[in-house]
């Protein structure tokens, strides 16, 4: 399938997906300010096109591996908002009953095989899921998202080589939003394109995509996933984007030049796509209906999440082991 083969309905789906991620995260931020969300959280505002485009290109049983900045990737795979929001709020109706928290969203049922908070760790793990799919002949593909700053840690290197030599069905996606936490990645990286300029070190093609253009993302994702599914091995894709907010909830992001922020706000993927869809025949009414429906969905999820219970001592000692318990001695 190529970009042109996406019909308007499918594109409205991509629009809706992005709006869901956007509105959800704005709500999460509000709830954070209202002290409903404790701990930390990392928003993908401005990066939604990547999550939406990839999720649309994935098969239902494909695997997603995300980072601590994982709300968008989790939701894009169809995980209900309530479970995600309740997890952020530390409630028993959270995806993991509050035990994982914002940085570790997981929903095996939806193929979301975890969000990982140690930089680089999930790249080798995604290789493992891909290796398993290959051995089982299941045709599943693992898609592994990570940031630009992650390209300088050792695990990145080991995973890319490993995937390449075993021709694993895994797609590595570098969301290059230009920044680590408070340091500009280009200042501490030896090459201009932290992922794409390294693809050749693993015998891979160098692929860069406009990460704010959901159609372009979908196209490149589809191609890489099809390739992986066909047994032709891994790909690495560098998607150029920008995080509109700070690194994490505590960070106002002041270290970034105003012009840079302005430039990227002008490239916001959602208004851009909104305009494109109008040009391609969608109506303002269709699109605002989507916005409204999503708003209602977010409101409902908020209510449901807030209604969740606070976890108790029973959960604390549960599920260290597969027998459901935590006993390490008799």
């Amino acid at each position: 399938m190529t970009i042109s083969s996406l019909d308007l309905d499918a594109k409205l789906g991509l629009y809706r997906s992005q709006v869901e991620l956007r509105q959800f995260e704005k709500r999460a931020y509000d709830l954070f300010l209202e002290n409903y969300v404790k701990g930390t959280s990392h928003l993908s505002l401005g990066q939604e096109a990547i999550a939406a485009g990839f999720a649309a290109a994935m098969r239902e049983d494909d695997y997603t591996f995300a980072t601590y900045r994982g709300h968008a990737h989790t939701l894009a795979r169809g995980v209900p908002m309530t479970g995600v929001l309740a997890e952020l709020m530390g409630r028993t109706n959270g995806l993991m009953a509050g035990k994982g928290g914002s940085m570790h969203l997981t929903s095996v049922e939806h193929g979301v095989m975890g969000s990982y908070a140690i930089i680089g760790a999930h790249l080798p793990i995604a290789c493992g899921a891909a290796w398993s799919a290959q051995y089982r002949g299941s045709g599943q593909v693992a898609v592994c998202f990570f940031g630009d700053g992650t390209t300088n840690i050792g695990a990145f290197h080991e995973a890319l080589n490993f995937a390449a030599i075993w021709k694993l069905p895994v797609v590595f996606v570098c969301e290059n939003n230009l920044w680590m936490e408070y340091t500009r990645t280009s200042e501490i990286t030896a090459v201009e394109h932290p992922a794409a300029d390294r693809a050749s070190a693993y015998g891979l093609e160098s692929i860069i995509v406009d990460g704010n253009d959901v159609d372009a993302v979908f196209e490149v994702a589809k191609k890489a996933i099809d390739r992986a599914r066909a047994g032709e091995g891994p790909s690495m894709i560098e998607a150029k984007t920008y995080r509109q907010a700070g690194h994490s909830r505590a960070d106002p992001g002041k270290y970034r030049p105003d012009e840079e922020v302005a430039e990227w706000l002008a490239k916001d993927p959602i208004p851009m796509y909104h305009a494109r869809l109008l040009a391609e025949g969608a109506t303002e009414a269709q699109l605002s209906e989507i916005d409204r429906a999503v708003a209602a969905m977010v409101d409902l999820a908020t209510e449901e999440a807030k209604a969740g219970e606070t976890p108790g001592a029973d959960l604390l000692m549960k599920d260290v082991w597969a027998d459901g318990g935590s006993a390490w001695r008799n």
Partner: protein
Amino acid sequence: MAQLTFREAIARGIAQEMRRDESVLMIGEDIGAAGGVFKGTVGLFEEFGGIRVRDTPISEQAILGAAMGAAMTGLRPIAEIMFSDFFAVCWDIVVNEIAKSRYMTNGQMTFPLVIRSGNGGGLRFGAQHSQSVENWAMQVPGLKVVVPSNALDVIGLMAAAVRDPDPVIFLEAKALYATKMEVPDGEIVDTLGSAKVVRKGSSATIVTIGAMVPRSLAAAEELAAQGIDCTVVDVRSLIPLDTQTILREVSATGRLFTVEENPRVLGWGAEISSIVAEELFYDLDGPIVRITTPHIPLPAADALEDMAIPSVSRIVEEISRSMNG
């Protein structure tokens, strides 16, 4: 005198040493203009410049390798590992290289370096950003391990760590970063391997470190109201370990309780328990009890995290149950 937070004390301790000695350099992620993710290095970049206070890539092995190579060639680097959980991605450099190389080379090399790291829970960061890893570090021959509990100690122990010719793991309790105290002006230099008796009692001895010190002190006040009068020892440095102070204070009361944030199995208190069980066997009036986080990964939800880490009320409860039982 100045009112100083724990996090400000870190920068002050480091600045004191960097002014004194040009061979002291800092490296780490976001420690420069940003002043560190926990704001422990605020002002250092401005005072000492980007060469001496230098941002690195997310490459913890490179950070610690660089520190080690610099230390063996005459510098005194201070490296930051942002969260102590991340020691796991560079543990080889710590345990196999830094800790062993002096011994292996029969003393040809010294490694005067400090590795600072945010340690412990209480911030609802979940299992991979909340660990107390003092017991990981204590386990490794060749590492010194410092865990301060207040701003004054931070300055003096940081100075001692920087001046020490051996590698020091300096663990900063994240839960204490915002705590404040009055600190005298002028140079402050403390001593590694010296425990402090921070409360004197007669019924039992609580031995603890870091973020568990204020909790143990609060618990001791509540216990005093019940007629259980506790000595509280702030160990401050696990290696070198001031065993003499611990043995003296335990033998004075006849009872030992450890209060540990690390998960239970092979928490640092197990070593102290084993020392006391061997060396004070005939002086103990009752069992040694270790009050610890259970042997589980830390949960993220505030309600759960609060149940996991020893709280004032749990310390009170466990001590009073054991003393009355």
